[in-house]
């Protein structure tokens, strides 16, 4: 009873190392778990922001596509040789614009489930990686359609004296305005896309 301390002699040094390594492994697991839940907090916030941006981009792209599709104007006078009607299908670039932005809008709708998955499981890398890769491809398509349509709209507003291309906006005012606003809406959608890609890249970081 006077003995207060007992010394335990361990005969095999290997078991001692095994137990200490186990302790180290457990602490590492604990640290990893804590870091994971801490990382999960801001990643979930980023995922929610991603989802909301996707919804905004869907609205923007559908607006752009439908405004361009319904842009039409017929001037009230007519002569025998000149055309006095303007619609989106008079320009091949605008046809490409309508189809491409419609494809971008349907991609965004299809990517909403992936975005919801990243909200539910903020630490999974696979859905985020898929979203980033497909977002990059689709942003190229959207930028291409927006830029080509912007080039034609610029030409319609200003014309080009060197090639004798006259600006048509002076005659077709309503058509020009509708087409310009469609181009602006699709450019806003492209900005949303770039923010989406940046969010996915930041959230992919592992600690």
């Amino acid at each position, binding site marked *: 009873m006077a003995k207060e301390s007992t010394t335990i002699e361990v005969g095999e040094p*290997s*078991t001692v190392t*095994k137990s200490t*390594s186990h302790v180290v492994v457990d602490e590492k697991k604990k640290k990893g778990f804590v870091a994971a839940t801490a990382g999960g907090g801001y990643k979930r916030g980023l995922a929610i922001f991603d989802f909301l941006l996707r919804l905004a981009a869907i609205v923007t792209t559908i607006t752009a596509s439908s405004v361009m599709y319904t842009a039409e104007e017929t001037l009230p006078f007519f002569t025998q040789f*000149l*055309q006095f009607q*303007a619609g989106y299908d*008079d*320009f*091949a*670039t605008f046809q490409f614009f309508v189809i491409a932005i419609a494809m971008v809008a349907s991609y965004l709708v299809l990517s909403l489930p992936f975005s919801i998955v990243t909200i539910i499981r903020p630490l999974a*890398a696979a859905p*985020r*990686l898929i979203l*980033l*890769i497909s977002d*990059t*491809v689709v*942003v*190229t398509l959207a*930028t*291409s*359609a*927006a*830029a*080509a*349509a*912007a*080039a*034609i709209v*610029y*030409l*319609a507003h200003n014309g*080009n004296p*060197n*090639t*004798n*291309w*006259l600006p*048509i906006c002076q005659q077709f005012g309503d058509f020009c305005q509708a087409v310009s606003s469609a181009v602006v809406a699709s450019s806003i959608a*492209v900005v949303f896309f*770039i923010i989406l*890609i*940046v969010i*996915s*890249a*930041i959230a*992919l*970081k*592992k600690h």
Partner: protein
Amino acid sequence: MKSGQAEIVETSKAIQKSGLMSRRNAILEFILRIVAFFNTITSAILMATTNETLPFFAQFIRFHAEYSDLPALTFFVIANAVVSGYLILSLPLAFVHIVKSKTQNSRVLLIILDVAMLGLLTAGASSAAAIVYLAHKGNNNTNWFSICQQFNSFCERISGSLIGSFVAVFLLILLILLSAIALSRRH
């Protein structure tokens, strides 16, 4: 004890393998950057040196064509020049990724800049493509005549310089993909 040692050997092998994969990844990125740089600089130079004067002249009509006559082509040259400058400046960073192992934050920065450059390059290339299409086909509804029928070599030059730019767009997409995969793989 034996199972513990086997575990340690296995995890070290896995770490070695992933280290090799990420190094290969980084080397491939470096090479792709160099190729994309050559593509963009070639496109910019090809477009900027367009100059054609037709051998006859009349008092009122222009018979001279160069890239600065069309603002979309000027934007194309500027965009290609900016992107090729960025690619050259990002080569040291890509080289550091090959050598160093803890590169998370710089990879995120590189992805953000790559996406911005992708947007700029795509915008320049597709607006130039729209104008080149117009130059080839014209537009009957707006009385915009195709200029390619008169300026043949100018037209060929501007069409050819678009190719390098679109190839560079594709390479930039690949670069972003590689960076993203490397980001998601780190332990």
